[in-house]
């Protein structure tokens, strides 16, 4: 059972983070380089961080990058860690983590549907939630949903 400062020391010594900080009680954020993410996740999983809540993706259009965030939790330390990394926006590719947590293949399929990120090693990239979508991926910041609606659907006319 470790507290937050001990976990921060552990991460600074054993992994090679770009940034570690404590956001508030029971909540930490760690930024790693792209190539060291898999070994970092394996290390944390072996030290009691076994619960993967979800994988999120944030579109930083001004920096021209996507940010992938992996949320981990430990039932012994009772601490949430958000492990982050950045990838390029034009050629958005990353490796899959389905060999560490098998449930991640569906989270990655969801991110592919909405942001267009490709994951090497994950063959099953069919459409999960959208159907017959023929525009740019809808959660990107340069997709304007109100213009799309004005083009495709018509509004009801009211009389009187």
């Amino acid at each position, binding site marked *: 059972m470790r507290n937050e400062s001990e976990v921060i020391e552990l991460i600074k010594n054993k992994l090679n983070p770009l940034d570690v900080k404590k956001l508030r009680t029971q909540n930490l954020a760690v930024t790693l380089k792209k190539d060291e993410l898999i070994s970092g996740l394996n290390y944390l999983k072996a030290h009691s961080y076994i619960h993967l809540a979800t994988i999120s993706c944030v579109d930083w259009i001004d920096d021209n990058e996507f940010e992938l965030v992996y949320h981990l939790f430990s039932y012994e330390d009772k601490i949430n860690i958000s492990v982050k990394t950045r990838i390029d926006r034009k050629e958005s590719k990353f490796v899959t983590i389905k060999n560490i947590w098998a449930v991640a293949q569906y989270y990655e399929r969801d991110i592919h549907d909405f942001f267009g990120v490709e994951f090497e090693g994950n063959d099953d990239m069919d459409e999960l939630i959208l159907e017959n979508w023929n525009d740019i991926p809808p959660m990107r910041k340069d997709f304007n949903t109100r213009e799309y609606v004005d083009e*495709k659907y018509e509004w009801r006319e009211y009389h009187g």
Partner: protein
Amino acid sequence: MKDKFKSSKWQEVINWAQKRSLFMLHYCTGCGAIELPPTMTSRYDMSRFGIGPAATPRQADILLITGYLSTKTLRRVIYTYEQMQDPKFVMGFGSCTINGGMYWDSYNTIKQLDKYIPVDLYIAGCMPRPEAILEGFMELKNKIETGNADGYLRYKEDYDFYKENQEKVLGEVKRRQ
């Protein structure tokens, strides 16, 4: 075609019997379906009016569109509507079927239900209370008795209009039978 049906005595008897026994298709399409179990169970009992649930579209009279429709569900609703036997009635539930409602700027929901399948009655609310649903059923029964609930006849007459709107939103819709 409509006048011939309205004035026949035999049609009046059929309308009288039909409005007292309606079967509703048990398909919860959207978030308005959470107020259907209180309407069907013992507090706001609806089977005292002769309305009950049916499991398959081939055995149902009423199709209730409870709330918004995404494009994926709209394709299945069109298949379901075309599998029901005549005469059939459609009721639109909530404000999402009238003009888009709460999700007016969403890229995935439709804005007017009237362009894709013919609607006989709208019930306003977000979401409507069980008393409002029962009031809607009473109004539908009045419409059946006077012969005004003719959505299914309109679908056959204006089929090109509906088909063009469906294909604009969905692409190609395969007709199975």
